[in-house]
């Protein structure tokens, strides 16, 4: 499998603070790597290094086969970048912004024009194409910014929190666009605050915290890492809790966890279905009045909190 984005031991220091302390990444061609991490983890710094905006202090990286330090121009020719904050000219119209960027990508004026119109249509901005960007809403800006990064049909796409601040419809439009790019063989590196988004789009996920990759794998692998499935029993009344705890302790052979306010008792499943049926029988025998009985897989949110300790301690 060909590797489109590779980073080895990236380090970047700001004053005495290490924003990146040895980031390693590898993204196969045509796949999407989702980067998750709390505020200040180093996501944007990583993207900026890979997009040649920032020189790393140490380490090396290659994008589309070119070294970011030695062949920045070739890298820039192959990439599209949507930064964390929309980078647009407020006083130009949406169409003018896209045409300018297309021209600067050296598409030629005619091609830049055609491509701009096509993208304005695709991102539902045609109605506002002739308006100055300063009149755009936040979501419209983000969409225009994404269009700008797609204008030269890049082989590698960097998206830094592309859907932050977008409403549901725009987010879905954007997801479609991203899937379309992937289907066309484009490699995407995307940071996001939305775990659901990573779950939906990413082939692999890297969790960054404190400037290093602390976990990496498919969404399923990460979930498995922090624990398997759990059985969750909701009860009709507080008085049923003790009996339920006893019943579950015997069958699951692990200490059940009680959540008082939601009247639920949960326990991790060792033996899968076998435990489920035994637990159901034991609960029945104990006469507990259950209102809910469900097997839950850990959510990516749970994974995230477990891995990062729920902190943003590195933020400065």
């Amino acid at each position: 499998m060909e590797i489109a984005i590779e980073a080895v031991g990236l380090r970047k220091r700001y004053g005495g603070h290490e924003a990146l302390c040895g980031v390693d990444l590898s993204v196969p061609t045509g796949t999407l790597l989702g980067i998750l991490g709390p505020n200040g983890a180093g996501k944007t710094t990583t993207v900026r290094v890979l997009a040649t905006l920032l020189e790393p202090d140490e380490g090396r990286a290659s994008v589309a086969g070119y070294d970011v330090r030695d062949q920045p121009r070739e890298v820039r020719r192959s990439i599209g970048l949507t930064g964390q904050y929309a980078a647009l000219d407020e006083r130009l119209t949406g169409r003018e912004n896209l045409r300018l960027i297309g021209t600067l990508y050296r598409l030629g004026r005619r091609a830049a024009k055609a491509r701009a119109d096509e993208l304005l249509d695709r991102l539902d901005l045609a109605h506002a194409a002739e308006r100055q960007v300063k009149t755009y809403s936040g979501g419209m800006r983000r969409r225009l910014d994404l269009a700008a990064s797609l204008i030269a049909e890049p082989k590698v796409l960097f998206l830094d929190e592309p859907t932050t601040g977008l409403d549901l419809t725009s987010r879905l439009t954007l997801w479609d666009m991203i899937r379309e790019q992937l289907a066309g063989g484009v490699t995407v590196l995307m940071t996001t605050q939305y775990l659901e988004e990573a779950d939906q789009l990413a082939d692999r996920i890297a969790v960054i915290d404190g400037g290093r990759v602390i976990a990496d794998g498919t969404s399923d692998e990460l979930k498995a890492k922090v624990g398997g499935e759990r059985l969750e029993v909701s009860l009709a009344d507080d008085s049923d809790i003790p009996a339920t705890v006893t019943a579950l302790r015997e069958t699951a052979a692990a200490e059940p966890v009680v959540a008082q306010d939601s009247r639920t008792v949960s326990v991790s499943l060792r033996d899968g279905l076998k435990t489920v049926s035994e637990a159901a029988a034991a609960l029945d025998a104990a006469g507990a009045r259950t209102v809910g009985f469900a097997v839950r897989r850990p959510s990516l949110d749970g994974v995230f909190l477990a891995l990062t300790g729920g902190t943003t301690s590195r933020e400065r």
Partner: protein
Amino acid sequence: MVELVSDVSALVGRHMKHLVRIPEKLLSVTLMPVAYVVVFGVLFGSAISVPGSDYRSYLMAGIFTQMMLTNVGNTALGVAGDLSNGVVDRFRSLPMSRSSVLIARTLSDLTLAVIACVTMAIVGYLMGWRVHEGFLKALAGFGLLLLLGYTMAWLGALIGLLARSAEAVNSIAFMLVMPLTFLSNAFIPLDGLPGWLRWLCEWNPVSAVVAACRELFGNTTTGTGKGAFPVQYPVPVSLVLCGLLLAAVVPAAVGAYRRAAAR
């Protein structure tokens, strides 16, 4: 080279759209210089007299020069704005030539300087200002002014890249331009000043440019031929000074652009 020209022309197009769409920008090169010529001419013109010339004509070279100096602020603000709203990041992620951003910016601000010069010349003419040394020398005078304006644009680009914020840019530009214009012969003849102050003002590079324009426009007072070296030979001194400053500031600004964006 072809690519540089195409990048620069696309970016100049962007700045020209700004000029039309941002009223303050257009006013700063039309209404402001008009106000300068009228206010300074009428107010000071009736209060101050200079030997051998009328003060209004004497003043024009000073106002022209001051207007060129304000280019520092224009360019610096534009560059700082692009830095803070991410446009520079976007440009830096494109396979365009690096220097084209600053070349386009300074050329566009040179266009502003041309507009300002033309406006001031028309208003000055209506108020009685005339050139007396012929068309070519007058043209050379405007050429020198625009060279100063272009140099100031590059200096402004450097300041904008280093200062990064509009507030800092404004105060730096103010602190630079104010003393340079007022401690010069732009608005007052230096003959009446105490010795040390006169010496200081005569060695101020701005005085050389103003004196050079007065010479080329034929708006000199009778009392030339004395004074420090720069005001004795104002034209060559101004050319050399602008050339040297430009040669220092252009590479510095291009370097600062590379680094500024790389934070």
